[in-house]
């Protein structure tokens, strides 16, 4: 049961070609940059965009399969959607927004309202039932949108950037709250986001979408520990190098060599956390096996930490303290040496 989909869609410049699976009770986060096809993917699942090829099966029922001339219209699918910006009907009050799905399914007015009120109680907004959505805060709107989507008791729940419209302050708390609400929904959930923190906090599994293709997928911890593309590496904030392994070293395309703790063989990725990179003004002598020279090309302040971009044969980002920056005089165009211990590297085949 749950969701089983193979999706092929051509829409303008977007060429979407994705296989997606979500079990009951599982949350899958679809992560990707703008224009990767995330929202289009959700729209195909909801029936708002018909697929050109492949098959979508929700809870054992095929809802879209062009080859079999099968297409179930959105209103007949058991799919709840929390849209980006929530799209609460501005002319209906909160209660009628939540009751809308039930009313459309020919549940009587009083019964719809009774059940809608139950859902509002569940998300803690029963006292706001009579107001218009415009009077609610962003977080409250999100909860109403969730209640509206869940009130029809769907088999599949889709969430399109559910936290993007919220300010940073309320976001952390609402993320936690959303996780609780998602956990109480028994069906499969697919969450679209461009924020890794949302994905980490809410999802069991990550599917990274780039230019309409799945670039990487797997459990959240696995994807963030072993990124397989520049986008994912940037997202999780690690340095990603690609090269060919032979015995205890990896040769990069630039000709530089990375020394490894374990023997490696064949094409591999090397992931280096920025915290593992040390910077020196003079060539260091020590236990670090990997020492490369380079030139600083930009610094970003992150709280009491500074991310230093070093350009050279091995381009790296190093994370150092503000104290180190002033002590070593780290600034743009300064020549530095970067060192990394072989034991700090994560190496995995491409």
């Amino acid at each position: 049961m749950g969701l089983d989909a193979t999706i092929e869609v051509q829409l303008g410049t977007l060429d979407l070609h994705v296989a997606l699976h979500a079990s009951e009770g599982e949350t899958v986060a679809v992560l990707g940059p703008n224009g990767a096809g995330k929202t289009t993917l959700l729209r195909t699942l909801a029936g708002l965009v018909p697929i050109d090829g492949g098959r979508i099966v929700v809870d054992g029922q095929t809802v879209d399969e062009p080859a079999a001339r099968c297409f179930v219209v959105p209103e007949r699918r058991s799919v709840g959607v929390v849209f980006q910006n929530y799209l609460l009907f501005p002319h209906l009050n909160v209660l009628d927004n939540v009751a809308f799905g039930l009313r459309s399914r020919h549940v009587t007015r009083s019964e719809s309202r009774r059940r809608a009120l139950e859902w509002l109680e569940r998300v803690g907004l029963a006292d706001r039932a009579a107001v218009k959505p415009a009077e609610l805060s962003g977080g409250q709107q999100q909860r109403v949108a969730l209640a509206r989507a869940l009130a029809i008791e769907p088999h599949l729940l889709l969430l399109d950037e559910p936290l993007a419209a919220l300010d940073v302050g309320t976001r952390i708390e609402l993320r936690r709250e959303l996780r609780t609400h998602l956990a109480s929904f028994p069906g499969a959930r697919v969450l679209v986001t461009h924020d890794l923190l949302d994905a980490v906090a809410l999802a069991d599994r990550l599917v990274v979408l780039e230019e309409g293709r799945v670039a990487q997928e797997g459990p959240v911890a696995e994807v963030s520990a072993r990124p397989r593309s520049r986008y994912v590496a940037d997202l999780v904030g690690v340095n990603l190098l690609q090269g060919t392994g032979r015995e205890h070293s990896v040769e990069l395309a630039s000709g530089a060599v990375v020394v490894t703790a374990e023997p490696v063989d064949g094409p591999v990725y090397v992931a280096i956390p920025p915290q593992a990179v040390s910077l020196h003004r003079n060539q260091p002598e020590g236990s670090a096996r990997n020492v490369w020279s380079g030139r600083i090309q930009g610094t970003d302040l992150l709280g009491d930490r500074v991310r230093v971009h070093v350009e050279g044969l091995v381009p790296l980002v190093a994370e150092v303290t503000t104290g180190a920056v002033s002590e070593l005089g780290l600034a743009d165009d300064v020549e530095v040496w970067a060192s990394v211990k072989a034991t700090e590297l994560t190496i995995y085949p491409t």
Partner: protein
Amino acid sequence: MTRRGRGVPLFAVLLAVVAVAFFVLPLIALLQRAPWGEFWHDLSQPAARDAMKLSLVCSLWATALSIVFGVPLAYVLARQEFPGRALVRALVVLPMVLPPVVGGVALLYAFSVNNGILGGWLLDTFGIQLTFSTAGAVLAETFVAMPFLVITVEAGLRSMDRRYEDAAASLGANRWTVFRRVTVPLIWPSLFAGAALAWARALGEFGATITFAGNIQGRTQTMPLAVYLFLETQQGTAIILSLVLLAVSVIVLVLLRDRWFGAAQHGA
């Protein structure tokens, strides 16, 4: 106004003042010539009362017909791509620029009993005669009024966020429910404005009505036609009826002020 260099050139200001005077002077003249003392007396004459009653009935019918046929037409034009859509839109808007008397003549050759395309058939089949009847006056008014509703509603449909319709569909609403419970409420301001404009246009319709429906008191003699007739015989009544039409126009403008003037002030 006091800033130099970037202000409007003086000659433009002078011409603008002339233009405003050109609009204001006739209104002042009308108000100044009105026989205020006989206001109620003139208005309560049978011919004036008939004209006002008929105008109200005909214009409301024309507005209702414009909504019933115009909203679906606007919906099709806004949402359905089909070959010749631009042509259909041009045809729909045509009555707005067509001299109404030409519209009246055209209606005559479509619906007249003797030589109209549909006139004889309508009479034989349903016993309906449109020419020189109240129904004909309604038809003539609808012909000139409906375009205002269609283009206003179509603009509203095009500017609304269609994702609300997607949201409604995902919640299980069929197309009719989506239209009724989401689309219409969301375009309500456009629908209201379109209906108000159509009604005002129907109320003032003269050329097509007199050509197609004639000038028969109590049947096709609406207020503009009565004004035209009374100008020869009872000028006072003509002025009073004109003032009533003017007042209605002002009321429509006030009702639409947020839509038109508010938008203009915000630069939209």
